[in-house]
């Protein structure tokens, strides 16, 4: 299915991919019904605050060098981003990543805007933003309010592109359009595809794109690609307009995850024939081996790829074996996004850990690739026989809490979205999941193994804390099954 790249508005994941936010069952069934097109979403009778597409989109757009974002929304939608993104901008230190200010403006929509329309306020704000920072590109993001009142943001962007002489793009980031906040990443990808990606003057066989949040840690992987004669073009925070412009020249794209990057990788494949490598994300040992093997074959460097694989495997084998010895028999619950839930399922298996439940915050049965290549978890089920009980969770952390309490694993692996505190409160160790470059290949797998081993060697923090936790839920709720609030499939 092709992406509607001419439309001003990006399609949501539900529309494009048949993605869902409510499910309980197992991986095998998910693959069968998901890939067969019979997958039905289940809603919940109790829903809690989760997340919307605003944050992911503004976070990514404001991270591009020389870009200013004008959020056409009431102050509250923007304020959250201002705070959050300025923190993210400074999180890890890496010599390649300079700490810089994110520039995000709000039109601060008020009641009169909802009556008379907000496009004049929007024009004024874009002009002020331009005057203040002289950006090289501006992106306008939309909100529930601007969308319901029907402001024609696209026309304003067109007019201002002409007036200011820089690209002024739009991203449809109103929270109500999609149950899946990752649709915000799609809005970002749609916006940069339309405004920044250029047609390739020439094709380069020595460049591969990486689409993700950050390029922190790139030194760990650049040298591996160099062995295949490849340079990595990073399309992440702190990338430049030129990096996006030349993305179309690359031979292919690999991604941090389907949530953040599928749309841009798919768009590059659709528009410019840039191969979207999506079946084997290079995370952990098995992911890396299969990815490098596929990549080597694609560029006719099978031999070099096998050399790198063999070297990497040998280099980390002793420590990996020691970690496997230590970790075999440990039980885990996974609570992660639509891609990493299943990446971690495979990687924990490589470490000898038994996964007793996998919760994905949402689920994409396919990605935006234009080829027939299968999605990674489907390949894993088929090729590696991967199995797990699975729920699709919509960031409903009460389900994680009840699941962890019931299954009593040794640890929970999670990251954003606040599942870990609920594990720790029940006395279960929480392991902070890392993603992207940090878990690339065998080095990443060993790093993960070490992190888990260290956490399990001293469990005092969660063990003691659990004795001092009073549940905010009623006894009836506490006694209920983890997925009791899931309603039957809609007809």
């Amino acid at each position: 299915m092709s992406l509607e790249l001419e439309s001003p508005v990006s399609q949501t994941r539900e529309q494009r991919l048949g993605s869902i936010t409510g499910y309980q069952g197992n991986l095998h069934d998910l693959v069968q019904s998901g890939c067969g097109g019979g997958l039905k979403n289940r809603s919940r009778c109790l829903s809690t605050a989760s997340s919307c597409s605003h944050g992911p989109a503004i976070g990514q757009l404001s991270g591009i060098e020389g870009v200013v974002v004008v959020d056409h929304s009431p102050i509250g939608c923007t304020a959250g981003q201002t705070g959050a993104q300025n923190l993210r901008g400074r999180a890890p230190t890496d010599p390649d990543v300079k700490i810089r200010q994110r520039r995000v403006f709000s039109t601060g929509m008020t009641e009169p805007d909802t009556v008379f329309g907000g496009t004049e306020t929007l024009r004024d704000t874009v002009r002020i933003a331009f005057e203040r920072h002289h950006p090289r590109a501006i992106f306008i993001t939309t909100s529930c309010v601007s969308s319901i009142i029907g402001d024609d943001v696209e026309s304003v962007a067109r007019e201002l592109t002409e007036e200011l002489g820089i690209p002024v793009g739009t991203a449809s980031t109103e929270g109500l359009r999609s149950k899946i906040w990752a649709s915000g990443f799609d809005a970002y990808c749609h916006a940069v595809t339309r405004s920044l990606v250029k047609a390739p003057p020439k094709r380069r066989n020595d460049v591969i794109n990486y689409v993700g949040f950050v390029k922190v840690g790139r030194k760990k992987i650049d040298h591996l690609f160099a062995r295949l004669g490849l340079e990595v073009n990073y399309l992440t925070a702190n990338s430049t307009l030129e990096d996006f412009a030349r993305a179309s020249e690359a031979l292919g794209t690999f991604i941090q995850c389907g949530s953040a990057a599928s749309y841009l990788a798919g768009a590059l494949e659709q528009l410019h024939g840039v191969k979207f490598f999506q079946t084997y994300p290079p995370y952990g040992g098995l992911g890396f081996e299969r990815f490098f093997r596929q990549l080597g074959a694609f560029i006719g460097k099978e031999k070099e790829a096998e050399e790198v694989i063999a070297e990497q495997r040998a280099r980390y084998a002793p420590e990996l074996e020691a970690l496997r010895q230590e970790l075999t028999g440990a039980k885990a619950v996974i609570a992660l996004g639509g891609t990493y839930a299943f990446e971690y399922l495979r990687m924990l298996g490589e470490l000898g850990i038994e996964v007793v439940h996998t919760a994905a915050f949402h689920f994409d049965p396919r990605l935006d690739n234009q080829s027939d290549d299968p999605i990674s978890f489907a390949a894993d089920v088929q090729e590696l026989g991967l199995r797990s009980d699975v729920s699709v969770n919509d960031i409903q952390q009460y389900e994680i809490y009840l699941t962890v309490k019931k299954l009593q694993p040794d640890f929970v692996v999670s990251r954003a979205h606040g599942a870990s505190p609920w594990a720790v409160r029940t006395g279960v160790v929480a392991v902070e999941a890392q993603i992207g470059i940090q878990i690339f290949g065998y080095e990443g797998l060993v790093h993960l193994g070490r992190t888990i081993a260290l956490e399990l060697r001293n469990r005092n923090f969660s063990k003691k804390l659990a004795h001092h936790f009073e549940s905010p839920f009623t006894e009836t709720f506490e006694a209920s099954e983890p997925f009791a609030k899931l309603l039957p499939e809609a007809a």
Partner: protein
Amino acid sequence: MPCSEKLRVACSLGGAYTALSINGVLPVLHSGPGCLGQARAVLAASNGGQSSFPYQENIVPCSDFTESQVVFGGVENLRKVVSQSLEAYKAEALVVLEGCTPAIIGDDVEEVVGSFAGSKIPVLFASTVGFKGDNIQGHTLVLKALIDGLLEPPAKRSDRQVNIFGIVPYYDAFWEGTLEALGELLKAVGLEPNILYGLDNGLDKFRKIPEAAFNLVISPWIDVGIAQDLEKRFGTPYLQQTHLPIGPTETTKFLRRLANFAELDRNVVEAVIKREERRYYYYVQKALPWIYRCKALPKEFFLLGGSGTALSVTKFLVNDIGLIPRAVYVTEDVPDEHRERVVELFSDLEAKADFPVIVGSDGGIFEATATTETVQGRPAIFGSVLDEIYAKENLLPFVSISTPLGNNLVGESHYFGYQGGIRLFHEFYSAAAGSAVNLL
């Protein structure tokens, strides 16, 4: 307010945090799935690593508005969420907060809330529509909903009980530490503080509001309307303290004012003052040799923050540390009726100082108007995490004192009173020395 950069306030729905700070009060949101998350980022997570407990944000019930509800209306979904919440959560009251979307499409939220009258616990309503105001307005609306819905005329009155208002939980990152320390100080001078927010402070404290001898409002303008309503309704007088006292000068003034107003035992009050001032200056004395040793320290400062923080910190920096303000940016849209008065309050300082006070939620205006003159003399910057990069790029001493405070854990720390003054004294000089030109 059109055009705001570096916002330091959330929208009205951020009032949910006031509900979350009162034990037993569970907010139920009729809003988009991400609305609370946006408020959380600026008021809590980026504001000293705060999070609500025991109702962590990601278990706060929310109707998670979707497109189909925009078309067909969202009231039935809300009804379901409220009724599920009544079953699943240990709570003593529910407050339904509506956001932008139901307000635009015309959901009759009041009708839904009304249909839960007679439930095992009260179900109340606050219309915290994001395009109608900021989190301070939301705070006021939530307080009003609780006051109107829960308070009864008192059976008895205390002659010592004082209710504390004016500090907005979470928005003021130091609220918990401040309220605990303030409570201790009030007890030390013979009062019975009734603190409404934080650990062990729940609806039992809230229901005692009408029994108080008086209400203490610590803010240039926030909650003054609430105190006036309570005066009308229960005849409770109120004392407005326009700023949180930080350091010996303002804390001593505050205690003497309080002693006059509440007819406290002067000997007790003066003994506390003497003891605490002595303690403050003990720590200052010990710092002197370190301070006065080949350091080029700033004498001037810029300050950015909400009205309460800005006024409180400015008073301390001028009256006790002896600094001179270059400009103060009050990063809230103070309502028109209070604006002139708020600006005027900055002229009541124990030093001659002629400096602009700029009011408005556009937190980017300071940097937008900054020039090479701004950094001349290396003034200190007192602001939020949003000002830190500018300060560091320009090698200016920086102290994070306002919302959003930054990527740290605020815990129980605070700047209130004599003790808070010692803390801010040390933080200022540490920051100043850390980026000072070394004259050795």
